[in-house]
């Protein structure tokens, strides 16, 4: 069995990124990631290795996110679009143009691949972003992703296909940047 320190050091970045793609802003993502990791540590003695530790921790993260969404819906909050931000996300999404700088359009055209990818991702649903992250960054199998998100495997397959297609179309719109 993995030690707590090993678990946290190995999975904290991925858990944070999963939270970020689900919530869309770094401040909330940090809170959610911390909660998820703490919960995993607390439940670690009862983890019997039925799945990979990562799959298990990601599932905890997704469940906590779902709880938060349900709570926010109950409180009448709307879905948060990814323009809701703390500092670094704000700097990516919103450009403050000091006097004397090149025209905004030229700056944006020079933004680069990363902005194009972030902009395209921002237009996807949170679950679709999570599926892309789990597949592309962690190479989770479809069955693991299904377990993490608690959806049928066929749903993972079709959502992943549609998300990639949507992303491909959006990225084509930035062809001048890429």
């Amino acid at each position: 069995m993995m030690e707590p320190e090993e678990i946290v050091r190995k999975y904290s970045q991925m858990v944070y990124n999963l939270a970020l793609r689900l919530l869309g802003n770094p401040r909330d993502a940090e809170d959610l990631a911390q909660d998820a990791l703490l919960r995993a540590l607390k439940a670690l003695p009862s983890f019997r290795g039925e799945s990979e530790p990562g799959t298990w921790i990601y599932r905890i993260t997704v469940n906590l996110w779902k709880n938060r969404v349900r709570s926010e819906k109950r409180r009448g909050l709307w879905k948060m679009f990814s323009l809701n931000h703390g500092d670094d996300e704000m700097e990516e999404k919103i450009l403050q143009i000091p006097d004397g700088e090149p025209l905004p359009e030229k700056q944006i055209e020079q933004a680069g691949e990363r902005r194009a990818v972030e902009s395209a991702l921002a237009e996807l649903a949170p679950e679709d972003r999570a599926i892309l992250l789990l597949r592309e960054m962690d190479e989770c199998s479809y069955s693991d992703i299904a377990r993490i998100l608690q959806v049928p495997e066929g749903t993972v397959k079709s959502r992943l296909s549609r998300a990639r297609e949507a992303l491909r179309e959006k990225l084509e719109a930035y062809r001048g940047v890429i």
Partner: protein
Amino acid sequence: MKEDRDHLSYEENLSTYLDGELESSERAELERHLPDCPGCREKLIALRETSVLLKRHMMKPAPPGLATRVLARGEGKPSHFLRSLSWKPALGVLTVALGFFFLYRNRFSKGTPLPSADVSMPYAARLQEKETREDDFSAKPKRMIGMGQRTQTLPGFALGEKQSLPAAPPSEPVAQEEQSARARGIEALREKKTEYKIGEDIRLVGKMPITQESVVLIKDKSVWERFWMSYSDEPVPQIDFKIHMVIVPPAGILLGNVEMLQNKIRIHGWSKYKADANTRYLKIVPASNLPLEYLNK
């Protein structure tokens, strides 16, 4: 037609094929199809390129110290990270209490004035300037204090830190002329006629498609004029950037009403908004350093 249905299923399977998750029979069938179908081959290449871009750019570094904080809390050690959920209400109260302490302690000193308002202050606070600042600058707190989440700090003043205020000036009444001039200035600021009001839209119809894709926040008159004139030959709308700023939304987003909250500016909007490529609706919001929050409907 059957052929169209079959081809659609080939296209739908490309993503799964890329991941190596197709059943063997479906994989074999697709691999027989690909040499004869340039469309599917191109799509597969495009999906691979998308995958490469995602792998390159999707992962962000975790916040510094996240792992350390989690381990510290997990072991029951006191954490230096004060943003833990269970501490938030207490932190919020503490922050407000400290804020009020540092603000109100001036009442008990020799009347050292706080820094006067500047245009970086929240809009609502500046509009209330006239009522709340006569000759006692410490009459009401001006700072928007986020409840445990984000603390707005004016220059020269930090909550929770020991603050050595300038020595109190020799006691003399604020000159009546200075006081009324300040009041008149504040009144003028409040009643200044601008062409646009907060929450209003400015319709920008460009002489060419507006290609700007990210959100742009404009806080400066010369930048605003250059931006406008780069797209339109219409007269530049007059914006008072002392109290307003302009948000240029990305394509496909229509901004709605604006809410001034204690620790943020919330903007409602709609995605999937279909507008022609030459038109963009820009939003007037209060000039502020508060974070912007967008809520998609």
